[in-house]
């Protein structure tokens, strides 16, 4: 009798449990289906954060973290070819300082690089700027404590936190706009970068850019500075050399006051700060040929020059070692390099 009761009770739970599991799976699957894949168009950056997971256990000597001033400015292929250093860029469009912190923290769970190169360009943003950029950075993160904290730090007014974990809630209306890309990249997004480097080959020379608006407040916001300090502490705790970089970009303006603040901050914290704007001559950057949008971002030719310069800097300070004789790394970069060259040639020909 008791056994029968138990059996009945178990049976009572069976259908709901099955449906719960199936519904959960379908919500997850449909979420993957309707989520934007960023495989074409002008928002390719949206797929980059997710790409890192496939390389998370490769163990890189240098980890680049930040916005377009890293993912369009450094070429891991060049760094390996010239100095034998393995590297990866965890970057995405307008990646805010707190997002950089959580992406770095997540990365450090699986690898401990010798150096972290952090773009400080986003210090200018005290608060999240818009949902689209938030989504491009955060949607690609796998569910973890880092993601939850990154989402909470980034949420804008009116945004639903839950929709960052259950994408179906945010993108359900895309069910009417699905394309073949959505099916093709259902389970893994497109890999459009070269270890996080987003290649641009167009050459649009610098001619004119608007004058910098008057700086109203020379101080950075409290929030980005707090997260910068957390990054400094994290690197210190892990014994990683931290290099703060301001990329060689002519616009938007980077003010003397900010530069001075960072010089002081870096000195206080015992980390390196490099303002590449002041070093473009050393790097050999030519604003007629090395930018794809008139001086705002570097193209592949500019990125290679900048990477060579940074590689020399890191090498001189013993922060990287030559791994070109390591067969695993060499094979990996050979494949990557082939793809990189093919794409560079294809795009360059396309430009002509």
């Amino acid at each position, binding site marked *: 009798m008791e056994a029968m009761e138990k059996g009945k009770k178990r*049976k*009572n*739970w*069976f*259908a*709901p449990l*099955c*449906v*719960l599991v*199936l*519904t959960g799976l*379908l*919500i997850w699957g*449909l979420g993957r289906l309707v989520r934007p894949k960023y495989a074409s168009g002008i928002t390719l950056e949206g797929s980059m954060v997710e790409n890192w997971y496939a390389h998370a256990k490769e163990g890189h000597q240098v980890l680049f973290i930040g916005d377009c001033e890293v993912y369009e400015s450094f070429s891991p292929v060049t760094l390996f070819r010239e100095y034998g250093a393995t590297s990866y860029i965890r970057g995405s469009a307008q990646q805010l300082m707190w997002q950089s912190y959580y992406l770095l923290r997540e990365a450090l769970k699986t690898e401990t690089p010798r150096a972290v190169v952090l773009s400080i360009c986003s210090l200018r943003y005290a608060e999240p700027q818009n*949902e689209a950029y938030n989504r491009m950075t955060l949607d690609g993160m796998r569910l973890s404590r880092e993601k939850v904290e990154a989402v909470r730090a980034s949420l804008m007014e*009116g*945004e*639903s936190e*839950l*929709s960052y974990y259950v994408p*179906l*809630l*945010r993108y*359900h*209306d895309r*069910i*009417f706009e699905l394309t073949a890309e959505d099916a093709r990249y259902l389970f893994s997004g497109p890999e459009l970068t070269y270890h996080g480097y987003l290649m641009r080959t167009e050459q649009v020379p610098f001619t004119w850019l608007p004058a910098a608006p008057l700086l109203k407040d020379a101080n950075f916001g409290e929030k980005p500075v707090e997260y910068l300090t957390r990054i400094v502490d994290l690197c210190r705790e892990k014994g990683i050399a931290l290099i703060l970089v301001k990329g060689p970009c002519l616009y938007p303006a980077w003010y003397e006051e900010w530069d001075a603040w960072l010089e002081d901050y870096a000195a206080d914290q015992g980390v390196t700060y490099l303002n590449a704007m002041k070093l473009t001559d050393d790097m050999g950057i030519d604003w007629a040929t090395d930018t794809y949008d008139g001086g705002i971002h570097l193209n592949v030719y500019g990125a290679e020059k900048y990477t060579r310069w940074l590689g020399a800097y890191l090498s001189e300070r013993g922060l990287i070692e030559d791994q070109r004789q390591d067969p695993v790394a060499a094979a990996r970069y050979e494949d990557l390099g082939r793809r990189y060259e093919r794409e560079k040639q294809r795009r360059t020909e396309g430009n002509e």
Partner: protein
Amino acid sequence: MTFLSSGFLLLVGALLITYYVLPKRFRYLALLAGSVVFYALAGRAYLPFLTITVVTIYGAARLLGRSLEKQKAYVAAHKTELTKEALGAYKKGEGRRRTAIFLVCLLINLGLLGALKYTGFLLSAFRAPWEVHWVLPLGISFYTFQSVGYLIDVKRGKYPPEKNFLRYALFASFFPQMIQGPISRYDMLSKTLYEGADFDMDRLGRGLVRIAWGAAKKLIVADRLAPALGLLFGAEAGNYRGSWVFLGMVLYALRLYADFTGGIDMALGVGELFGVILPENFDRPYLSKNIEEYWTRWHMTMGGWFRDYVFYPLNVSKPFLKWTKRLRTKFGDSFLSRLPLYTATLITWLATGVWHGAGWNYALWGLTNGVVIILSLTLKPLYDRFHRRFPSLKEKKAYGAFEILRTFLLMCLIRLWDCYQGPGGVWRAFSSLFTVFNGDAALSGLDALGLSLSAWVIVLCMAALMLFVSLQKGDGSFRTRYLNTPARLWTIAGLLLLLCLLLGAYGPGYTASDFIYGQF
């Protein structure tokens, strides 16, 4: 806070666990605590008003109950020794005391409702030089009417008052019915509200299916149509005439039905999770064959309330009975002798209209309903004669369909009061139906209403599904016919949830539309 907010879902989840973990006799306390939390989350400023209603009605009902008991005991004790007149005088005295208590309590509660809901409107109607923006507590019309109904029943001696204050407080504030009803009766609701139901997986599933079905109606039909109706009846309403008005009134009927029945489904579903049976509020109203029938099938708990506590008492009140008698003597069984009945009908419908909101449109909406009902009553002999002449007509399905369509369109027309601003706007819309109909305009301009073709298809498919489910009710409800095994029940619950998540209108780009009836 609405049924579809994450806060509400979390509250229900937490309450479910607490409810079934507690010993049975304490479970109603969990529901009361949940109701207080719900109400405080909806707006802390609302709590004092609800408290006033709960305390005054509870106190007054207890006094009324004591008075009735005292009277009963007195009569029993002195039945033999006192004359009929003396007993009558005693009863009259006690009756007067009860009436005084009742009226004071009624004045406090209806006064509070009236002051909060109508002061602003009255000041602007009479062009007063100042404005007021008082807080309007969530569900005040619903809980006030439910409480007043209880007080009237106690006064009538229908049942004794609830002695336990906390139990009464739960009856007045049970949270699922605070957003848009239904308006429950104490004798019905108390059967399940306090019993502390045992955990039953199947009942849980049924509750979830009902919630998900309500959410699907709300999200897939009502909220998808909301932007289109916003255009048709909004600031630019003057640009949409003729066939647009027709399209608008039909879509509004669909939206209102999906929204209101969706909300009620959710309320009943939440109640079912806790084993509490709330009264049904709809019985396939759009399948009614005349307006009287319609009003016994749409918002049944409100209709029942006005019937039992306004219309009947008014119709059998001494002045009305005297008036009827006088007219009957003078005019026999003619139209004029039914004037008191019609007056009671109009007063009831005026009150119903005013209950819905503070505005001339609501009052006129109520009066229009009353007038149409009176007309149909007056013309009834004519109908009867017509059907005696063509006896087979009533049995024909096509004629039944015609009656249903006629009633549906009539109700759509009456609801124009709900859609347009002021009598002028309603008249312009109504007259354009006959002067500038231009049927092609609405059909060819559907995409101008902000809904994609796929959205229209989804709305129509869901409306068809709603119709299919409604039609099943003829032979027992859809739930009893199709959801009769746990596997089916839970599968439908899961599918409905997916349907809501995938096809519902929510998220950025949509403003979560509050339930239409929530504003009443």
